[in-house]
């Protein structure tokens, strides 16, 4: 067999390559730069490569090609929009990651061991979280543009493996953090296996792993339908696991709670964008013609996810777990954009993902600020009266909660409106009704937190609010601004998305 040398379009791939380059430099920095200079060098390298990548995405935003890397990736409007969203969300998350207080000094040391204590005492803080972040981000950039199942799987692993590690890096409550990392890893490995199994079945059906090949095979009805159905089912398991949809959500509350909060912020926001991006592409391009094979299943999962997420969130007493269940509910809302299977659904999903991602990072940024002597305080009972002690922090958090609840004049409302109207337009009335009702349920627990913060008196137990570092402040201010501006003047971004977002098959 003759070997065909791959033809790569380096310009179109440059955002990914820049980040990979940055990650490799980060590894070298970790090895060779002196202890004192390491954090600032790492931060600059990471931010620098993210900004460069963003600039590069902007420069190619009008281009599109199916052959940037043979037929493995498709560069098109939705892909680039999602990439830009992921990079922007990563930038504001990196501001939070820059808070080294949150991370263990030496991840390799056993919790509570002498080594760990020694590392802490000598201030020997390792900063491997930066290159890990960059590796994860580059995987996320590949995920929504991958246009064959193999690339999709590679991207899935590429974004997941660094995240498994990052979840275990917490300085406080290290055992819980490591436990969550292990859970995430084991369940993630399972779901990857399902994904791969599904990919094999799809190949069996279509004799092709490319999305266009699958699309053609479905259009020609040339393969064995059973293989297709099993393939879609297993593939969906892998993807639904990543977005945290019920019944594949079990990891998310534990991981959200156990992981260091900056990592949770990054993971909750960026992973969701990447995973939904991939889902949108595969269902909109590869499986579009087999609509009746998967929309009923996804509709059911969407309804269960919204209702379950909203209901269980009510019972949560921990702010990070509550946000985890809220993110499950939002995964359900986002699924209605996938089910819509129309242009409006695609536009709405991209808008929703960006708006939700930014607000999520902002919300978690606030969580990092509420602390006592032993680190972050995530018990909601101890958030009582926060509005009295630190009105600005509490008001910002309340604003993010209102955005999650979809109250008008926040980006969340525009997102919710656009995604539900797209779903309704496609005839998914049941999903929309479930969505509206679970929004009402969800509003209840968001408001309960606002009540806690503003309408109950503080208890004196040493909980205090950290004065935010300037980088954390930046994250919060950017998130607030984006959430507000997208709620009041969403037109420019909506138009931009509408003009750009068309999948290239």
């Amino acid at each position, binding site marked *: 067999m003759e070997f065909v040398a791959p033809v790569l379009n380096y310009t179109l791939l440059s955002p990914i390559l820049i980040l990979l380059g940055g990650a490799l430099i980060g590894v070298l920095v970790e090895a060779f730069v002196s202890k004192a200079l390491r954090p600032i060098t790492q931060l600059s390298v990471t931010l620098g490569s993210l900004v460069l990548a963003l600039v590069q995405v902007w420069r190619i935003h009008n281009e599109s090609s199916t052959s940037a890397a043979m037929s493995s990736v498709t560069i098109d409007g939705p892909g680039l929009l999602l990439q830009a969203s992921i990079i922007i969300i990563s930038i504001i998350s990196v501001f939070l990651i820059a808070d080294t207080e949150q991370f263990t000094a030496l991840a390799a040391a056993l919790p509570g061991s002498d080594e760990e204590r020694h590392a802490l005492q000598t201030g020997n803080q390792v900063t491997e979280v930066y290159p890990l972040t960059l590796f994860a981000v580059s995987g996320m950039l590949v995920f929504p543009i991958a246009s064959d199942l193999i690339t999709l799987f590679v991207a899935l692993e590429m974004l997941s493996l660094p995240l498994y590690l990052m979840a275990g890096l917490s300085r406080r409550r290290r055992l819980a953090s490591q436990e969550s990392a292990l859970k995430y890893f084991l369940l993630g490995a399972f779901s990857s296996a399902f994904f791969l199994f599904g990919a094999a079945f799809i190949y069996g059906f279509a004799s092709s792993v490319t999305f266009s090949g699958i699309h053609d095979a479905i259009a020609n009805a040339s393969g064995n339908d059973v293989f297709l159905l099993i393939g879609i089912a297993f593939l969906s398991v892998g993807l639904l696991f990543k977005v945290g949809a019920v019944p594949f959500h079990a990891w998310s509350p534990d991981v959200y709670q156990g992981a260091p909060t900056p990592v949770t912020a990054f993971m909750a926001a960026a992973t969701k964008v990447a995973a939904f991006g991939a889902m949108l592409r595969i269902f909109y391009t590869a499986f579009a013609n087999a609509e009746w094979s998967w929309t009923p299943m996804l509709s059911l999962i969407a309804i269960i996810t919204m209702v379950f997420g909203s209901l269980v969130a009510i019972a949560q007493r921990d702010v990070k777990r509550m946000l985890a269940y809220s993110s499950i509910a939002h995964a359900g809302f986002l699924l209605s954009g996938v089910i819509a299977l129309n242009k409006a659904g695609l*536009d709405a999903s991209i808008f929703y993902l960006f708006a939700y991602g930014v607000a999520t990072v902002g919300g978690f940024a606030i969580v990092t600020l509420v602390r006592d002597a032993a680190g972050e305080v995530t018990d909601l009972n101890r958030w009582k009266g926060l*509005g*009295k002690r630190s*009105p600005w922090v509490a008001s910002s958090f309340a604003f993010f909660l*209102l955005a999650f609840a979809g*109250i*008008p*004049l926040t980006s969340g*409302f*525009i997102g919710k*409106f*656009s995604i*539900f*109207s797209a779903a*309704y*337009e496609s005839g998914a009335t049941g999903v*929309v*009704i479930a969505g*509206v*009702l679970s*929004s*009402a349920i969800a*509003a*209840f627990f968001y*408001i*309960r937190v606002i*009540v806690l913060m*503003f*309408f*109950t008196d503080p208890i004196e137990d040493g909980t205090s609010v950290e004065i935010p570092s300037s980088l954390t402040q930046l994250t919060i201010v950017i998130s607030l601004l984006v959430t507000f501006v997208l709620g009041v003047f*969403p*037109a420019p971004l*909506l*138009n931009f998305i*509408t003009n750009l977002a068309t999948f290239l098959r």
Partner: protein
Amino acid sequence: MNSLTLLMLLPLIGTAVIAALPKSNETLTKQVALATTVIVAAATIAMAVGFQRDNVDLQFVEKYSWIPSFGINFSLGIDGLSLVLILMSTVLAPIVVLAGWNEAHGGRWSVKVFYVLILVLETMMIGVFAATDVFLFYVIFEAMLIPVYFLIGGYGSGQRSAAAVKFLIYSLFGGLLMLGSIIALYVMSGAQGGHTFDLAALSQLQMTSTTQNVLFLGFFIAFAIKAPLWPLHTWLPDAAESATPGTSVLLLGVLDKVGTFGMIRYCLTLFPDASKTFTPLILVLSVISIIYGAFLAIGQKDLKRLIAFTSISHFGFITMGIFAMTSQGHSGATLYMFNHGFSTAALFLVGGWMISRRGSSTIADFGGLQRVTPVMAWSFFLAGMSSLALPGMSSFVSEFLVLVGTFTRYPVHAAIATFGIVLAALYILIPVQKALHGPTTPGNEELSDLNLREKIAIAPVIAIIVALGFYPSPLLNVINPASAHVIAQMGFTDPAPTNGDK
């Protein structure tokens, strides 16, 4: 022509000024708030003078593109109905600020925050009545819950946070049902000639009667919670009991009117057939509200809850007038909305002064106020007479019109509703007798009468109540063409009056 936008901006400018003031200077904050609301009221009155009364089209129309990809416009315009309600809101605002001069002091937060919330709310009150884009209306409808929520929860008394949450959850639930209907309208408009939220365009949509019924319910339940109609009223007494008197005036006087306003502007215009289908049910609910509200008002021991239940009874009259589908009924309902705003304001403000002086809101704690504080007692008496619709008071005209308008088409409902008037005499005269007359209850001897500020605040309210009682035509001239227009659009003609000497 962008006078409506300017009107909406004025309170926001006041908000900005207040935000820039130092926290310590509370008097200045209040003065700025008062000045702003007075200017807004003056501007609205000027606008009302420039309003062409015989023109049934929307006036002061303006339209700016807001979110073009969804066909959403920032479009405003008013007809007689919205003008009357905006006028009521902006005239009540300075009265509330002046009357509740010291209301903000018992709150969780500073005086500054209180007036920022009030002024932001005023902007939204104007916007919600002036919006002619359904999306814009919805946005304001939902957004205005937030300042009210913080006003009740932050500055109220008693179980204030529970009451605030109850209010918010009820309203949000209704709002989300309405959102479902709005999404459906939007999608249908897309299928029938382009996405739009323009009220006039949406009212031309073709839909099956099932769709119309379902969508109607989405809107109607939201409005019935707001209004509030039995059995969706349970949040109101709690909210009114906990809120400060000023907030209660805005809540019952203005915000609840959004419900009845919405029934006319949105339910009837968008879903004329469904409105007819549900008319019998809604009329029954209205009559139940009238009687139920009145009976519960009689049984109340707490003055604020009593006023809340009288309002439920009054909102029953308004809803009945709307769905009687006659032009008198409609005019009466609209006038009722205006009058109810002022008579409830009078009751809540005077009641609030009584409560803050006595330190208790239990009716039994008062007694003999007529002797100790004659001006306050007389004010309360007049407010009460207005609430029971005594001839010569403004509410008599509107209640009469509603009953006449209903009787021509639904005599049985009107007849039962008339009992509401009898009960009204009870629920007003019992507290009047207990609180104002008889021997002075121990502990009341030292109560002080109304001071100058309070007299200035209550005087215009009573003046309006009495003046409109004798001479309602200035308002009716504005309302009648608008009501006749709605009824004509619905395809109704008024039944010929039954003539006795045929």
